[in-house]
Each structure stands twice: as structure tokens, then as C-alpha cells.
């Protein structure tokens, strides 16, 4: 078997090394570092939303107008406070009317500051933040060697599509214990490249991530971080379990075949549509058996968990 080059797109090429005809008992991993194309999404407007009649814009490129109420809230609020202390000479000069106005003004300022946060959850809101590359993490691409060629292609393609189509900058797919890791991860410097997949496996085992029953979505992660393997600056994480397809004879088995973990540097990175597509991708890795019927049409005996 010679080197097979799987070209998934003109942009990234994956070389699968030789020598996996024989299964060795010890795990051997190949670290393939590939240059991914620019992960930042070019902000294409959703074609369904070109209905705006009124646009609150200052015309300055690069300035994000949806945060304007917040800045105005901060600015005018501080001016109000300044006016209260500096404007009048003595405390007795401040009338109750002025106090009422200032109270109203400060509450309006607080409301304006909160406004962009509320606006993020409205239908049709696009995330305004750009995906940033986390600092201090390096880009890696690792595939466990104990999988067949077709499975390697599937895993490489699945990680590529996740990195390309969603706001993801790190993805980890684990199917029946075999890992595929791609993107920016916070790997420790003292672990050698060959032991890296083992290290990932141990970290996963520590939290029992492979036993997650339902989809876990952490849309807002604070600076302290969630798990050590995630790079600094991760703000959202989604763990999608890959369901096990139970045998018809044995209905008790409900454990998963694995999971897909994606992480992003912006909060609320995965909307409902993204999560639906990631769920569909997980089903691809679930087992599927089918039976041909005699008349040529196909009946899929796809057993679902």
C-alpha cells in the first residue's frame, strides 16, 4: 500500500502514511500537521434578512453599530454623574426635580447598556464577534492509526467540515475509543507527539465525556475555562454524543459509540441550525445496517438508539 493522498478540497491535503496492514498491539500515532485555510468566516449576510428599512450606522468601516447603545449608555451615564457633582456648586442647589431626572437617566443608561446583550438572542441576530485564534495553542491534526482507510477519510472529512462551516476552532471526534483531533488545542509541552493521543484519551476518561447521554452545550464559558485540554479563550463548547445502534436482541445497551466535541472562541457560537447539522453528522458515524428487498427498492433497517 503506497501513500494515498486524499484531497478533500483544493485547500487542504491529507497524506495517510503506510504500514497499517498489520495491527500492532501498542498504539502508534501519526501526527499530521496541515495548514488549514483561514478559519474566520467571511461574514456573508443571510439572504433572508435583507429587509432593513432603517439602519443605525455611522458609516465607519469596522465599527460595530449594534454595540452603539452600550457606548452611549456608558458615556451619557458618566456625564450625568459628572453633572451631578460638578454642575451645581453646593448640595442644596440640587432640586428634587433634578434628582428625579438623574435617576431616570441612570436607569435608562443601564437599560441601554444591557440592550445589545438582549439583542443577541433575537431571531435573525448574527454573531458580531469574529472568531479569534487562541494564543499559546498550536494547530494539530492527529488520527488514531487503528482505523481503516475509509474511516480515516470519513474522520478527516468530518473534522474539516466542522472547522469550515461552523465557528469552530478545535474539534475532537471519538468513535469507539479511536480519536481524531484537529485544530487548536492546549497540549502540554512535556508530552511527546506520539503520546499525545493517549494524553487526550486520559483527559476524556477523567471527566467521562464519552458517556454523555444528551447533547451538552456550554454557550458561555468564563475565563477560568472548562477542561484543561481546551485552549485559553474558549467560550463555547458543544459535546454531541454519537448514538449506539442497539442490536434488536439486546435492548439494554444504551451506551454511546462516541462523541463529537467542538469548541469555539466566541460565546453562543452554535445556533439551532448548527447544532442540528452537528447532530446529523453524528448520526453518520452511528452504525447503520440495511437489507435489500427483492423488488429493487431499498428498505433501510436503520436501528436507532
Amino acid at each position, binding site marked *: 500500500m503506497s501513500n494515498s493522498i*486524499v484531497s*478533500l478540497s483544493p485547500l487542504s491535503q491529507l497524506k495517510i502514511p503506510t504500514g497499517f496492514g498489520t495491527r500492532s498491539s501498542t498504539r502508534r500515532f501519526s501526527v499530521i500537521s496541515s495548514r488549514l485555510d483561514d478559519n474566520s468566516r467571511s461574514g456573508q449576510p*443571510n*439572504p*433572508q434578512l435583507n*429587509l*432593513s428599512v*432603517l*439602519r443605525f450606522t455611522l458609516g465607519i468601516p469596522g465599527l460595530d453599530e449594534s454595540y452603539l447603545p452600550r457606548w*452611549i*449608555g456608558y458615556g*451619557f451615564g458618566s*456625564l450625568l454623574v459628572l*453633572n451631578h457633582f460638578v*454642575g*451645581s456648586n453646593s448640595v442644596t*442647589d440640587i*432640586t428634587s*426635580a*433634578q434628582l*428625579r*431626572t*438623574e435617576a*431616570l437617566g441612570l436607569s*435608562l*443608561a443601564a*437599560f*441601554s447598556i444591557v*440592550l445589545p446583550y438582549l439583542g443577541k*438572542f*433575537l*431571531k*435573525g441576530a448574527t454573531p458580531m464577534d469574529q472568531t479569534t485564534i487562541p494564543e499559546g495553542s498550536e494547530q494539530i491534526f492527529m488520527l488514531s492509526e487503528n482505523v481503516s482507510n*475509509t474511516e480515516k477519510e470519513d474522520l478527516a472529512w468530518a473534522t474539516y*467540515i466542522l472547522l*469550515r*462551516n461552523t465557528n469552530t476552532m478545535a474539534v475532537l471526534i471519538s468513535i469507539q475509543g479511536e480519536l481524531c483531533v484537529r485544530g487548536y488545542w492546549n497540549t502540554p509541552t512535556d508530552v511527546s507527539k506520539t503520546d499525545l493521543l493517549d494524553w487526550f484519551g486520559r483527559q476524556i476518561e*477523567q471527566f*467521562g*465525556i464519552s*458517556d*454523555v*447521554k444528551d447533547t*451538552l452545550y*456550554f454557550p458561555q464559558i468564563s475565563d477560568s475555562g*472548562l477542561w484543561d485540554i481546551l485552549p485559553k479563550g474558549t467560550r463555547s463548547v458543544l459535546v454531541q454524543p454519537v448514538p449506539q445502534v442497539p442490536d434488536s436482541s439486546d435492548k439494554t445497551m444504551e*451506551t454511546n459509540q462516541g462523541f463529537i466535541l467542538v469548541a469555539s472562541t466566541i460565546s453562543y457560537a452554535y445556533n439551532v*441550525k448548527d447544532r442540528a*447539522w452537528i*447532530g*446529523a*453528522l453524528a*448520526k*453518520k458515524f452511528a452504525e*447503520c445496517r*440495511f437489507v*435489500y428487498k427483492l423488488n*429493487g*427498492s*431499498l428498505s433501510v433497517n436503520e436501528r436507532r438508539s
Partner: protein
Amino acid sequence: MEAGRSFLRTSPLPWAPKRTLPRRFDLALPHIVRASSSSSTEKRYRGPKPTKDWVADWVSKNDDLVRSLPIYVGGVSLLAVLFNRTLSGIAPVADASSSQSRADLLTLGLAVTNILAGLVWLSIRPKTISIVDPEGIECQIVNPDLPNPVVSELLWFWQSLSDVTCCRSLVIVYNSSCIIQLGFAAESLKSDRKPASVDASKLVQGSLYHGVMKSGAQSYLANLSLYPGKSELPFLPSNTQAAILQPLGEKGIAVIGGDTIRGFTTSDQAWISLIGEKLDATLAKYLDNLPFAMLDRV
């Protein structure tokens, strides 16, 4: 502790017949055996769980209310400022001479900002478009010569599309013959209650196919009724609202019909085009060496 439990799980101890075991062991054993049978599937996720996001849920549910909220807040506070000013007997003059006037002006500015923000939110409210149920016959026709991996991948594609997007029909033509037809199809002209078959050779000679193959990129027909090329897709239900034509390499095309105008979002389009590349790789791998018969006309 975990290791100890797993050891007990894997080695069942035969306790019933052996009466020679010491008394305390006897008492302990039933407990252990029972525990092993019930906790055999107890592998839990032990990490942090995501907290329920009340604000996000509330805003998503009361979308209309939240959109008009800043306008009401701004309007009410505008009136309140003017009311306050007249009540306290201050002349309604818009100058910045006294600190009262300055505070009033700042509050007015904030109120106006809120009103404008509310107007912007109302103007970018996405229009809800209703679903149009396709008129046709449901069918699931697969070329019998296809190898198993290809069929499972195509069926996964269909399952994902129908679960996630507004897709209701899927037709894939490869090497000038139709290899799969799923979902709703138009009723056949020749025989009642049967789905119309796909005339692949006619499709391949048509302008839609040529256009898509020449550009090599996906073609999104957001409102199918406006396109004259609709006549080249007679196998889709006549009231299909939107269609995506995805080229599969240089030899195939996937025709995806949806039930909503502009129903496929940019995210859907991106996913479909990347899955199309994967399908092309799979089809090329399995089908290029395999001559397969044309689908029987129904």
C-alpha cells in the same frame, strides 16, 4: 473505588452453593451481586453541566415583545422628562445653562437612543414564510446495482437533509443516469398514483445542468416558480418552492427540492456543498468501475 467496582463486575462470585464461606462474607455477597447487576451500566459523565440560560430562553420566546420594548421604554421616559420639567415649574427651554437642563438633555438623548434601537430591531425582524406542502407521491427509488456503502451514505444524506433543512425531495443523477430518487415526486403522466421517473438523459442535456457543471458551484434557486428553467425539473412536485442544484464532481448532480421560499440558509448551502464533495469522492470510488443499468421506467 472505580477499579474495585469494575473488578467485581467482571468476575461474578458463585456464592449460593458454597456454604463453606464465612458468615460475614455471606452477608456481604448478596449485596455485591445485586449491585453488580444494577450498576453495570453506571458510567456517567462526571464533568460540569451547562446551566439553564433563562435570559436567552425568555428573549427567544417573547421575540416580538422584546423588539418593541426599547421603544416603549424610550417613549415613556421622554414623556416623563418633559412632564417632570413642567411639573417643577421650569421653563421648557432647551439650553444647557443650568445643571437641571443638562441632566434633562442627557436623559432625552438616552431615550432617543433607545427608541432608535427599538426601531432598528423591528425593521430587521425576519419575515416568517409559510411552508407549502409538496403535491406529489412519496417514493424511495434506489438503483439496485449500487454497492452498500454508497447506498448508506446517500440515505444518510437524505435523512440529514429532511431532518435539518426544508428539503422534501432529493434526486441524484450520476453518469447520465438517475441513481436515487427520494421524497416527494410529481405524479407520473403515464400512470396514475405512480411517481414520475427521472429522464436523466434529458436533464443532462438541459441548460440548468450545463450551467451548473460549467461553473462547478452550487446553484440555489430560492424561488423556483420564478425560474424558466423549472421546466427541466418535471420530476419534482409542481409546487416545489426552492431548489438547490449541487454538482457532484464532473459527472453528477444532486437536485434538492424544498418546501419554503428561500428556505435554505447560507449554513445549509455550505453544508450541502461540502457534503456534495464527499459524495462525489464516494461515488467516484465505487461507481467508476461499475457499469450499472438504467433505472427501469415505472
